[in-house]
């Protein structure tokens, strides 16, 4: 009896967890129905010719619906939600797609299962935002055997090359941009000495590695003094705690704080306010943030954050280009970056040069905020 009750409760808990996973997507409610019709369609296709892959191509060429399976990481941040939304908008029924969306809730086992599920459903394309970088070779081989092209977005896969394309953001370029902006800003404001504190992201995350690498490259070139660099785990509390400690350790010794995401910047702002350190356009400390969620841009507009380097979650339009190229029988570009914008609250720096390319600094306005997807 006791065991039964416990097992019922455990099951209930698991169902609740799954319900949360599904809840994040509006298209999911119809996904079961879509899956069955899709299966039926696939069977018909298989009956018509023996080669499933060939059928798919033919079907697509006839202007039929293209089925895309998307195994998303989860829904841990506004950024991720925007990324999901972007996919759902691009691969909509109006655009001639049938999107099978699975929210994996940051569980890599669930993600592997999701991809296997896509193979069973015989989708035309699979999009993966890999939760972990390794352990993919086997399942990607299965995809290859089934003749389904795989497109990887955002994060990377390291132990397999059996995917046709990768689309994501260039975090090193983001780091470089932050450095270049700081250089231009310091020149504009006539600041000769830069003493920098960095609040890094989760150690080992690709964004942390790239942003650190890019920013440090500029810092080294310009001979800036990076006083300290510690991790804030990409969270607001992390940023708060690290900044609180920085304020005590390096009192009056720093004039730049670089936070590797928006949440850390919010935490750092709280901590600096509490310690009586002024920041932003009118303050003593220059604050730079990455990602560019709406709240961060609002702060940039108010002049509390000096510059926000965007990490663009809108990968789906580029993924669609890849799919269209494959549909047309062309070789897609193997590695593409989603272009990011750079935001600021004041007009002291209007453009910067990143990787030899001139980039415009966008001034945040209320109208711009209206159009932001996340």
């Amino acid at each position, binding site marked *: 009896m006791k065991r039964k009750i416990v097992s019922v409760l455990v099951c209930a808990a698991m169902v609740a967890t799954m319900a949360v996973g599904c809840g994040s997507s509006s298209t999911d409610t119809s996904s079961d129905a879509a899956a069955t019709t899709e299966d039926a369609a696939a069977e018909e296709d298989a009956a018509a010719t023996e080669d499933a892959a060939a059928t798919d191509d033919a079907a697509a060429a006839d202007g039929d619906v293209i089925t895309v399976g998307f195994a998303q990481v989860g829904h841990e941040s506004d950024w991720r939600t925007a990324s999901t939304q972007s996919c759902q908008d691009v691969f909509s029924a109006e655009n001639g797609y049938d999107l099978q969306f699975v929210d994996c809730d940051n569980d890599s086992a669930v993600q592997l299962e999701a991809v296997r599920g896509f193979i069973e459903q015989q989708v035309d394309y699979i999009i993966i935002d890999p939760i972990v970088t390794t352990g993919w070779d086997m399942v990607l081989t299965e995809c290859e055997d089934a003749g389904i092209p795989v497109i990887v977005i955002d994060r990377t896969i390291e132990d397999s090359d059996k995917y046709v394309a990768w689309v994501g953001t260039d975090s090193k370029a983001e780091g470089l941009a932050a450095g270049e902006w700081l250089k231009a800003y310091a020149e504009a404001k006539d600041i000769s000495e830069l003493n920098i504190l960095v609040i890094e992201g989760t*150690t080992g995350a690709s964004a942390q590695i790239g942003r650190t690498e890019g920013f440090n490259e500029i810092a080294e070139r310009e001979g800036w003094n990076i006083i300290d660099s510690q991790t804030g785990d990409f969270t607001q*509390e992390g940023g708060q705690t690290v900044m609180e400690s920085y304020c005590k350790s390096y009192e009056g010794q720093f004039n730049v704080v670089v936070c590797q995401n928006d949440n850390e910047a919010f935490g750092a702002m709280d901590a600096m306010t509490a310690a009586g350190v002024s920041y932003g356009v009118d303050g003593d400390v220059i604050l730079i943030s990455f990602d560019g969620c709406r709240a961060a841009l609002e702060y940039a507009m108010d002049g509390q954050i000096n510059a926000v380097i965007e990490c663009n979650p809108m990968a789906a339009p580029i993924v669609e280009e890849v799919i269209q190229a494959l549909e047309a029988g062309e070789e897609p570009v193997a590695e593409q970056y989603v272009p990011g914008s750079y935001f600021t609250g004041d007009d002291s720096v209007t453009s910067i040069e990143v990787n030899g390319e001139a980039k415009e600094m966008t001034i945040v306005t209320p109208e711009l905020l209206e159009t932001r997807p996340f």
Partner: protein
Amino acid sequence: MSKIKKITGMRLFLPIFCMILVMAVNILYDVASGNFALNFFTISVRNGVLYGRLIDILNRGSEIAILAIGMTLVVSASAGTDISVGSVMSLAASFCCMLLAGYGVSSTNDLAVPLLVGVLGGVLLACVCGAFNGFLVAYLNVQPMVATLILYSAARAIGLLLCNNLIVYVREDSFKMIGGYLGFIPTPIVIAAVCILIVAVILKKTALGLYIQSVGINKKASRIAGLNSSRIIFLCYVVCGLVAGIAGIVASSRISSADSNNIGLNYELDAILSVALGGNSLGGGKFNLAGSIIGAYTIQAITTTLYALGVSSDVAPVYKAIIVIIIVTIQAPPFKAYMKKRSAKKALAKGGAAA
């Protein structure tokens, strides 16, 4: 000699000794880097509020200290740990913020309901979670680890559902105050102190502490002696849920948002560790609340010290682990026995030489 022995023989000696040991590292560091030796311990009033590393430790350690109260009682009464506290914190925070902001709202500058309603709602929900755990453990005799595993995995997810999968921001001053400042003292310190005081007084002034210990030592015997063992275990879990709720609201107010993915993440482990560092047996029975609280602040002292030393973020967990290993070893019974034996041998050798 006998005086020293008296001090070292005290129950709280080892936990306090360990904490002092951790902090002493900072004196060495300050001296070595040419600063004022007691830099770490200096407390000043800056910007109208208390300011200093010690204040940071007390402030940041509040959540774990609050959790440690409940965890100590649970460990003592049921000889098991409540691993759901971190998730329950997150759930309480999410529910509180959802009430304050209104369902589906992701950012608000004014409150939808009075602050008290939101806070009480969050804390009450946490109590319900505690009661759920308590019911499973006390009345269905489910192993505590298994029983609390249910909410460990589910509570965070329920929190996400409540918040519509968003991070809910409540940027309102009265809510921010819970994790901010009360006059010139950080509010979390006050909340932790009040919680500790209330529980300590109840344990001291009533026989409840004794009941909990006796249930923990032998549940059956206690029942035969006339105690309602199940009810006492149940009560401990409810208290544990209650404090988890309070800690959750403090944590959420600090960042003025309900970040259900990150609030209270891995706090259950820190809470269990603080009970262990406080010299309490995880096997239940006798407990020492003051020890657990000291353990909680020791954990925070380690974290703050590592920040102060500027230890690179990649290797910080390694140092933390080393320090914890040392502290646990010092307090381990075989080590204590060995030290006793050695000193006895020394005394014997001395005695032999004198003769």
